[in-house]
């Protein structure tokens, strides 16, 4: 007997898994026809790719803890702090480039380690823990910067770090791809990735399967902060230190990750889906900006995207659950789990998912 189609819902054309790519093509065609001389240029391609490269690294930083079921809302603050530390060390303290970068990345690693400690050992909900951490990090940044925008370092090596081109693209695009490939390898090709997804999927079941859930949650938050350190260093080299850049990245990053979880491997936060989502959004925003010339489109787009993506993901889960319930009622007995224990008429029975029929 071949695999029954009811258990493997895979639409034929892959509109589900590859909808982002179709949408991307559609956006390019529409704007290509609408404003061909502005939109269909190598300049547009290069600028979209480069402008979004650092946002992409931050999105990947958000992705790792989300895969493990933890929110990291401190990414924006960590990026800001990194830009300030790496600049102050070079411009004010006179450090050379590589030690400054090293210390910056280590400082961010420490931030992640503390986040992980708060979430894993103190058992503070990650949403609250990293929200609080973001505020603390913002205070640290003020202390380090002395509440003024530091002057950018003047060394040649520093500007060469990012202000170079490879095949017409700024080199940050290459850096971003390297980060993406490494993360993809780790998340989808190694046991570490399996453990992280297992913790995100069902932490208690993962623990009972021998997965060190605390360790991997800690690891994911630490990875996230370290990636933010790298993103901050690259941004400081590319555009100079910033007190505000990171904060503006938070929502687009979450939008990309959630939207990305509907792509390629639906239901799973994944690296390439995230990048596709990020660039689809960026392309659409770029096109509309070229047409209309207004700046507020990015905010509007990202807000709509994050809500739509999560609503879509919830809808998918509900569909999957109702399929599972249908399968369950084919069986002779209940599963004995709370999920099957359907409430009669008490109001709190609404807490049980199966009662929402």
């Amino acid at each position, binding site marked *: 007997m071949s695999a029954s189609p009811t258990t493997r819902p895979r639409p034929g054309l892959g509109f589900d898994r590859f909808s982002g790519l179709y949408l991307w093509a559609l956006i390019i065609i529409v704007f290509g026809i609408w404003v061909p001389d502005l939109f269909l240029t190598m300049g547009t391609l290069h600028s979209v790719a480069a402008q979004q490269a650092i946002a992409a690294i931050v999105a990947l930083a958000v992705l790792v803890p989300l895969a493990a079921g933890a929110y990291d809302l401190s990414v924006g603050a960590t990026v800001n702090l990194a830009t300030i530390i790496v600049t102050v060390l070079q411009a004010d303290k006179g450090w050379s480039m590589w030690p400054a970068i090293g210390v910056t990345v280590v400082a961010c690693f420490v931030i992640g380690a503390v986040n992980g400690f708060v979430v894993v050992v103190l058992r503070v909900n990650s949403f609250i823990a990293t929200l609080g951490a973001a505020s603390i990090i913002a205070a640290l940044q003020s202390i380090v910067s002395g509440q003024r925008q530091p002057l950018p370092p003047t060394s040649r090596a520093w500007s060469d770090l990012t202000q170079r081109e490879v095949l017409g693209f700024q080199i940050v695009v290459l850096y971003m791809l390297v980060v993406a490939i490494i993360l993809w*390898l780790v998340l989808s090709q190694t046991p570490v990735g399996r453990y992280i997804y297992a913790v995100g999927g069902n932490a208690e079941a993962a623990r009972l399967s021998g997965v060190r859930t605390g360790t991997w949650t800690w690891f994911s938050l630490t990875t996230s902060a370290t990636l933010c350190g790298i993103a901050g260093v690259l941004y400081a080299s590319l555009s100079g230190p910033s007190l505000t850049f990171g904060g503006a990245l938070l929502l687009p990053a979450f939008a990309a990750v959630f939207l990305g979880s509907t792509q390629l491997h639906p239901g799973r936060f994944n690296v390439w889906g995230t990048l596709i989502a990020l660039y689809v959004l960026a392309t659409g925003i770029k096109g509309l900006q070229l047409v209309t010339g207004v700046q507020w489109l990015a905010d509007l787009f990202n807000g709509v995207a994050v809500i739509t993506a999560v609503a879509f993901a919830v809808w998918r889960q509900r569909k999957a659950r109702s399929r599972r319930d249908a*399968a369950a009622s084919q069986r002779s007995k209940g599963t004995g789990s709370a999920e099957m224990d359907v409430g009669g008429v008490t109001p709190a029975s609404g807490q049980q998912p199966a009662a929402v029929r």
Partner: protein
Amino acid sequence: MTPHEVVERASGAGPLPPSLLVRGLSKSFGPTRALADVDLRVDAGTVHALLGENGSGKSTLIKTLSGYHHPDPGGSVEVGGQPLQAGVASSAYDLGCRFVHQDLGLVDTCSVADNVALTAGFPTRCGAVRRKALRRRTEEALQRLGLALDPDTLVGGLAAAERTGVAVARALADADRTSVRLLVLDEPTATLPDTEVKQLLAVVRAVAASGVGVLYVTHHLDEVFEVADDVSVLRDGRKVVTTKARALTRRELVEHLVGGELEEVSAASGSLPTAHAAPVLRVQDLSAGPLVTANFTVRPGEVVGVAGLTGSGRETLLPAIFGAIPRSSGRVQIDDVILAPGRPDRAIAAGLTLLPADRVRLGGVMSMSARENLTLPALRALWRAPRLRRRLEVAQARTWFERLDVRPRGAVDAPLGSFSGGNQQKVLFGKWLRCAPRVLLLDEPTQGVDIGAKAEIHRQILSAVETGAAAVVSSSDYDELVALCRRVMVLRDGRFVAELSNGALTVAEVAREALGSEDRAA
């Protein structure tokens, strides 16, 4: 019986129609009949106890009454003389049925008054809650049940019986409370300490005294004799008896529950060799939650059963051994390794595995594929830097699908959640067999699993044990224990009260020990 006759009889009934009148109710799931032609009558103002082993159809009956299941055509259900619309959830409520489930559905962080008012509605003036009126109303509702609770106490701080009382008060509290005809209590005492059961039974009596019919589902025989007017017993989806509780002895009740014809001898396990090797699992003075103390050893090649009612400590025994839940004291040893408490990863490394009872919540990661679930505990064997050997993993998953007869056969990459319960359980079972464990802890290994999958899992348990592993099976299905195990240990009130083997190991004997029937067969 034709529908006409049903109507005639109902209209011909006296001035007080029965609270619940079930006639010829059947419910099939595919080819299996979970309920077959069940009649049941609960008179107003009486307590009717409903008993039955797991899988006897009790929960199907309740779910049919509550409108969750759509019954097979032919039967009828009337509440207070009015026909219940089959499969419509609001119909049961409108006719005056109220349900209190084992999971009470109370909001711990809200006060008693607020919890009650969630159903009955808050008394308000200009949109603001009238606190005094709410307080008074709640006090009245509680007093009717003989509960002296402060309505402002948080529900989270109450004793277990009081919480159940609040749930009952909430179920009965209504704008128009004369409309409540039938209260269904689904194993309200399963998790109550003995000392609190009496308090709850008083509440149940008070409810009946107010003219409401009570359908009282329980496992505990003592309560039947204490509180019930009538008793019905379900077995294998059929009602085997309805009688007055006074006219019944405890022994007769046990026989009705277990059924005389089920006295089978242990089948497959009879041929298993009991090794003379040193014990592979040693449990000493283990205590955790309701489990007071447990001492036992298991040798390689043995399948040991654990029986006991809900709340006897049976549910906590295996998780506590494994380290899934904390233990308050005791020592667990696999061969020479003493296990650290609360460390499933070390337990697995030492060769101990646990198949949890709650498959969806604890057993597997439903969003991951069957393949990923299968390989999760022992991924290192597939790891050759820098990548997992995907092709080898798929091949292994296919082999296990083949070996355990998981269907659909080709769907190794489908999410675990998309499989049926039996096939999910096979995958999770395969996940542990793949680790080549020394000891398999199996908690309700075939709960909610169809007959074919059940037989397959039993075969696999026996074949794993033949190769030198040991297994501890905890189950509420006594047939399963007797068929699988050479010896069965019975827990009652947190202690092992009996160890049955050889001729003494029968379904009836296990049930008697678990229920604590004094006048047991010689």
